[in-house]
């Protein structure tokens, strides 16, 4: 456990020192959301109607943008060898990296979501469901995306390949994430959708790091 925390702290410290990546994701999120009023037109009820979908799809794309680099730096400077040779199982190392990544991108993205929802004119009753859905959904996006990042490690055009691999797997999170918010907006209980998002997360926590570790070992051979 102390080693797990040491790994999380390591990644947070490296990210803070190098700067950029996490802020980039948030700026991308903001810009992408701001494009919709220009593209769709300023009509308030249309924007409010599509706001849930817009927020989730841009969150998905923002997650993808940052995940591409998850293992690349470690791979290029040789640190991945050392991480793979720690006595701690590689799956735990992977989980620590995903947790750190979520703290840097998923968490701020979730906290800023109501602000973006305000820009799009979403009804205020949807905010709690939006935040809860993002809290449960974005870690799953990170876990699945980490697997994609490991599988595409060392590939040419890894970014495009990653999108092709991972976006289809993001669909269940997207469906239930949007459904939870839409249910709240329609005055229906969003609990069942949130429960499914939670179930997806609980399934992803053991499965994805394990598969990611196997993919990383393959990349190191």
């Amino acid at each position, binding site marked *: 456990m*102390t*080693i797990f925390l*040491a*790994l999380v702290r*390591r990644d947070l*410290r*490296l990210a803070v*020192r*190098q700067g950029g990546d996490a802020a980039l994701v948030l700026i991308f999120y903001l810009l992408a959301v701001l494009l919709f009023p220009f593209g769709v037109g300023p009509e308030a009820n249309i924007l409010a109607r599509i706001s849930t979908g817009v927020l989730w799809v841009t969150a998905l794309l923002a997650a993808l943008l940052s995940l591409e680099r998850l293992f690349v730096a470690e791979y*290029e*400077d*040789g*640190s991945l*060898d*050392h*991480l*793979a*040779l*720690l*006595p*701690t*199982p590689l799956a735990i190392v992977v989980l620590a990296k995903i947790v750190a990544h979520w703290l840097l991108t998923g968490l701020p993205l979730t906290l800023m979501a109501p602000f973006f929802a305000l820009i799009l004119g979403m009804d205020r009753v949807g905010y709690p469901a939006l935040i809860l859905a993002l809290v449960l959904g974005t870690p799953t996006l990170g876990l699945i995306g980490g697997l994609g990042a490991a599988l595409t490690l060392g590939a040419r055009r890894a970014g495009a390949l990653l999108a092709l691999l991972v976006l289809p797997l993001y669909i269940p999170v997207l469906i239930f994430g949007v459904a939870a918010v839409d249910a709240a907006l329609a005055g229906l209980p969003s609990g069942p959708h949130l429960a499914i998002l939670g179930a997806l997360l609980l399934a992803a926590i053991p499965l994805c790091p394990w598969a990611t570790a196997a993919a990383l*070992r393959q990349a*190191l*051979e």
Partner: protein
Amino acid sequence: MTVFAGEGLACLRGERAVFARLSFRVEAGGVLLLRGANGSGKSSLLRCMAGLLAPMAGSLTWDGEAVLRDVESHRRRLRFLGHLDAVKAALTVAEDLALHQQLHGLRDPAAIGDALSRLGIDPLAGLPTRLLSAGQRRRVALARLLAAPAPLWLLDEPTNALDDDGVRRFAGIVRDHCIAGGIAVIAAHGDPGIAGDVLSLADYVPRPMDPAA
């Protein structure tokens, strides 16, 4: 007496067999030097020994125990140094070594100071590693071996980029490691300045139609 040994090892890279029927044996306090031309499989053998690469055939043993049966204990007793220094550009030299200790569950600032002075880089302790030259970074990578000690060192071209002083210091730490009962396996085509048993990879080139290859 601790013995690290391999028996009948074979390795395949892509479609090509790089070595076959390779056996070795190092006892505590011993140095094994891997010799061979570029592409002869020195790095592959080291990665096999570390467990990063699964051998096609053969077995590795530590004190008679198959290494693959308990990979975690094997990882705990080995330190690997590859072509790349794996030094994080954003950290200072001292931070990098402290982090390395933490990841191995250690906390020992005295060992860091000692490691830095053994490699002659104590004046650099507070500098970010991105400002270091290639040779200085190499010294940081070598200092890690002392900061978080382990009995088995697997070193791939450890003297790359080192100047004469660095090579001498490196030979010194390997000598002390062996006196303390450690084992070092070193891949080198230059002269690493260390005496030891030599394993020439050229003797294990797979023959065509070789069933073991």
